[in-house]
């Protein structure tokens, strides 16, 4: 898929709402497979509600930026920084959870391998982006 095509899809105001509902359907199916249909239905309802809210909300820059149809280079930078902050918060949470598990005499799973995945993804991303120039 070309970059322009990808950009056209993600900058549509329908992308995030449909993506939210899609994730909700996936959670519903996996919950159903795991015998927890109620959990899946709640997740689908919450994600559908979020999708509808984003779709029908006003024309604020934040909503339009999140939705994709109001995204410009400044919002892309905001998005990148917000993603980095989110990653940092997740890393800190994982490290703390892993340390608590270790201190309680547990193996540290699944936090240990999640940290490993995160570290590996970071290293691969740095290597790839450096190679790409």
């Amino acid at each position, binding site marked *: 898929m070309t970059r322009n095509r990808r950009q056209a899809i993600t900058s549509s105001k329908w992308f995030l709402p449909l993506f939210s509902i899609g994730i909700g359907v996936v959670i519903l199916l996996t919950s159903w497979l795991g015998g927890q249909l109620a959990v899946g239905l709640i997740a689908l309802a919450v994600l559908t509600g979020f999708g509808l809210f984003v779709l029908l909300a006003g024309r604020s820059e934040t909503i339009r930026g999140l939705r994709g149809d109001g995204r410009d280079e*400044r*919002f892309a*930078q905001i998005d990148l920084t917000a993603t980095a902050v989110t990653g940092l918060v997740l890393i800190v949470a994982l490290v703390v959870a892993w340390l608590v598990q270790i201190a309680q005499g547990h193996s540290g799973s699944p936090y240990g391998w999640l940290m490993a995945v995160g570290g590996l993804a970071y290293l691969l991303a740095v290597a790839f982006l450096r190679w790409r120039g």
Partner: protein
Amino acid sequence: MKNHVRRLRAERGLAQAQLADAMRVSRQTINSIENDRYTPSLPLALALARYFGVTVEEMFDDQES
């Protein structure tokens, strides 16, 4: 980075929204540039300079405090 976008826009009697539409960015982005809260990318800086018929150096000033 200091810039003269607000002055150039005002001289031409343009609203922020009109300039934003011409540059295909949000009005808030133009506002952030004018208030020195956001430094535009090189493509946007070039587009702004072309739009106003000035050089990038005439529009942006990295020396001014």
